[in-house]
């Protein structure tokens, strides 16, 4: 008996050795792969820290030269090397605000249409069309805005706005000056068209997540479609919709090319939304390659840092809201 058993182990020794080698190799590749994926994750982490760090280092000369007053100074004079960020920050906020005023109600109404009113067969095509609108590169919006939208607004819309509000106190200064075509209103309008698909897509997703029983219960009480939407769907999805709006706002704040084409690049704070202005991203795009001198470059990088911080905060809030909705749904 013992001899047989011994014989058997003897027989399989070479097999066992090669088996151990194979297992060892498998274990090693297994470990290596795991480390590789971990390294990639850390690289993504490092990327964001790298971006922030590089921007901070690049903005040191400008911050040293101008201090915190940088953000409230309107002067932007490359010749005398006097730089202030007020005009770009103002332009960024105003154009994004115009964009949101136009895009939020329209985006929500489109999502309302897709989820509640649209016949089933039409839902997918419309959703795809809206998503295609989101995929069009911003430079296309820019060239279209410059050659088509700006002349149209200049000829037909802006003179009308100027005439209409000329004698309305308060609003007259908002629509003042000659109709250039390009300017903050045009930029805001283009931004609105660009963020519309984002707001629509997210609103549609969260509206779709409303449990059917809730809506059916409201319909059972005799509510109209609009009442169901307003009193059941919207309150239920409020956080998600706000998240989507913030996500769209994040896009609008950082959008570069579409705005650069139509903003007019004037470092000036004007009350009139018809006046040309500039945004943070448009200033960087227009001037960075031509910036001579360390201070000029550094001032532009500081603008980039400010933009990054603003969008970071907005996007972080957006993600937090959407995450909360997800957990609430669970």
């Amino acid at each position, binding site marked *: 008996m013992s001899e047989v058993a011994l014989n058997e182990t003897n027989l399989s020794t070479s097999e066992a050795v090669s088996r151990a080698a194979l297992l060892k190799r498998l274990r090693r590749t297994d470990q290596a792969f795991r480390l590789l994926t971990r390294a990639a994750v850390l690289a993504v982490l490092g990327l964001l820290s790298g971006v922030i760090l*590089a921007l901070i280092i690049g903005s040191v000369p400008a911050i040293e030269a101008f201090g915190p007053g940088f953000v409230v100074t309107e002067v932007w004079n490359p010749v005398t090397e006097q730089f202030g960020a007020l005009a770009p920050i103002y332009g960024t906020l105003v154009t994004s605000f115009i964009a949101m005023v136009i895009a939020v109600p329209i985006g929500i109404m489109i999502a309302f249409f897709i989820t509640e009113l649209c016949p089933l067969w039409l839902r997918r095509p419309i959703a795809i069309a809206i998503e295609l609108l989101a995929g069009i590169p911003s430079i296309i919006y820019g060239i279209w805005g*410059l050659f088509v939208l700006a002349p149209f607004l200049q000829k037909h819309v802006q003179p009308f706005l100027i005439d209409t509000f000329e004698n309305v106190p308060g609003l007259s200064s908002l629509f003042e000056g000659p109709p250039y075509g390009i300017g903050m209103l045009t930029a805001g309008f283009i931004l609105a068209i660009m963020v519309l698909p984002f707001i629509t897509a997210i609103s549609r997703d969260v509206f779709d997540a409303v449990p059917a029983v809730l809506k059916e219960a409201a319909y059972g009480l005799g509510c109209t479609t609009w009442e169901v939407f307003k009193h059941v769907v919207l309150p239920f999805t409020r956080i998600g919709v706000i998240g989507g709006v913030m996500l769209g706002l994040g896009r609008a704040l950082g959008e570069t*090319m579409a705005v650069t084409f139509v903003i007019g690049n004037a470092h000036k704070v004007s009350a009139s939304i018809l006046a040309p202005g500039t945004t943070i991203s448009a200033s960087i795009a227009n001037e960075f390659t031509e910036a001579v001198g360390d201070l000029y470059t550094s001032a532009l990088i500081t603008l980039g840092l400010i933009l990054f911080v603003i969008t970071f905060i907005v996007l972080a809030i957006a993600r937090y809201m959407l995450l909360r909705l997800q957990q609430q749904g669970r």
Partner: protein
Amino acid sequence: MATASNPLYAGRRRRNTVATGLAYAATAFGLGWLVMILGVLIYEGIGGLSLAVFTENTPPPGSAGGLLNAIAGSIAMTVLAVAIGTPIGILAGTYLAEYGRHDKLSTVVRFINDILLSAPSIVIGLFVYEIMVAPMGHFSGYAGAVALAIIVIPVVVRTTEDMLRLVPDTLREAAASIGLPRAHMIVRIAYRAARAGIVTGILLAIARISGETAPLLFTALNNQFWSLDMNAPMPSLPVVIFQFALSPYEEWQKLAWTGALLITVTVLGLSIIARSLTARKS
């Protein structure tokens, strides 16, 4: 019948009609822009479309030419960007979905990835300028490709993770039960099951970067001549469109429209292919 004449009901019905009417109008408004933009683009772009666009380089002001060098530059930088960004993106997505699905690191990285996904692309251009262009002392195609790669990574991370999560756990357990190590399970089974989705992510990333202008403005810069030297300034379609559209020369503006049409067709084509890949899967 009594209900129909009740003013309360009539008011509610009226409000409902107005609201639904507004929803129809909003949808028409949204889709109207798409139709209008595409219409203008095709109308203006088709006119300039000719063989010369693909065989001649960008012209000096006031003369005819094509977009050959810009197209070549765009393709070269896109290919390199995808070559750099895709492996990192897939590996990071793999970690998030397979190894650290619930750990702290993954939660943080997921959040950061989402921020990178919608971070302003011009800031990425500034970053690459700081780390590559400034130390090297000159603009280059490499810098442009790195900037584009940074945009590719978050897109691929996100889709890879989402697609791997769709792979049923029973497949993973079956692989483990026959003694397959985790890495081999991921490569041989999970990747294979999620292949269509991962490819979709890569296509979407290509679609995203083929229209990106802002990060190239001060990394790859531009170039009027034929050049495939990636260590030198490199032209690209979006940057050429930007330069030509803002110029006062009619030939340049025409070429800008043609270039815009080419980019849009590429981007829309890629998104439609990507969509049909996943649609067939589900």
